[in-house]
């Protein structure tokens, strides 16, 4: 059953990707990338990563779509510009990257097996000891906010810095000052 759901979702992902490449209207591309994020969230739910699926659905399909539509409105750009350049270099780069990624998957352990290195290193310690030690039933939360709280502190600072940067670049009253300068 899970196999068929995965096949259907991945086929739709591929179809949406092709549509994004073919499409020239930027508004359609933004909406299609929102659909892509939503399909990706469904794939992550099938993979039992509900936290990541929630983030993908709210950030990828929700907020970035809104921000991208805002960008289109601000720039007034409705269609992709037609560059008359050769496609040889981009084609080589994307095919090369794809080939390297596929080559890299050959070195990975088989999907979902129990004795993969990632499941034998420190994960058993977390799974066995986190609940007696902290009393928090959700191991993901314990790892993120307790054992790895320095990392999460860093991530929060990254979000803070991102917000600060956007506010400095886009916010503020630069336009009004410029008007005042020309008047005086």
């Amino acid at each position, binding site marked *: 059953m899970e196999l068929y759901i995965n096949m259907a979702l991945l086929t739709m992902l591929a179809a949406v990707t092709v549509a994004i490449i073919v499409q020239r209207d930027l508004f359609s591309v933004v909406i299609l990338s929102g659909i892509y994020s939503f399909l990706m969230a469904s794939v992550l739910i099938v993979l039992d990563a*509900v*936290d990541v699926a*929630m*983030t993908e659905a*709210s*950030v990828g399909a*929700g*907020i970035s779509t*809104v*921000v991208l539509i*805002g*960008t289109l*409105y*601000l720039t007034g750009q409705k269609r992709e510009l037609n560059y008359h350049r050769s496609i040889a270099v981009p084609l080589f780069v994307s095919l090369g990257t794809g080939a390297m990624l596929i080559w890299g998957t050959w070195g990975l352990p088989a999907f979902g097996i129990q004795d993969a290195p990632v499941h034998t290193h420190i994960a058993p310690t977390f799974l066995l000891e986190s609940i007696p*030690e*902290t*009393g*928090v*039933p*959700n191991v*993901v*939360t*314990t790892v*993120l*906010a*307790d054992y790895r*709280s*320095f990392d*999460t*502190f860093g*991530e*929060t*600072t990254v*979000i*803070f810095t*991102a*917000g*600060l940067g*956007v*506010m400095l*670049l*886009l*916010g503020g009253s630069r336009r009004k000052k410029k008007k005042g300068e020309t008047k005086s």
Partner: protein
Amino acid sequence: MKLDLILRVTTKAILPFILLFALYVHFHGDYGPGGGFQAGVIAAGMVILYSIVFGVEAAQRVISQRLVATMVPLGVLIYGATGVISFLYGANYLDYGVLGHDSKHGHHLGILLVESGVIITVAGTMTAIFYAFVQRGR
């Protein structure tokens, strides 16, 4: 900007549930999927939905730009202060065990405090980015 009546009424009806869901994801993070980051994004999504349907002025009357700009650093400060409190109790930075009357209670409290910092910063930042984009368009 007059929008569809059905859209306005439906938006008004689901707004409290979106906020409730954000708070559920936040406070239930110890037991179920989600946590501060996801909850913050959902809360910011509520503000964005409200401003899309009713206009940014209406949204900024409820959640002002000043408040949003305060939330962005406030969350990081709450997170950092939790670590300093552990310091004051004589433990390592961000060691929650000493915060409560026993170790388990301390870990619960510490995770909740830290996640509160995350939800405040994330909700503030996402709303601030949206406000900045909208402000620029005028």
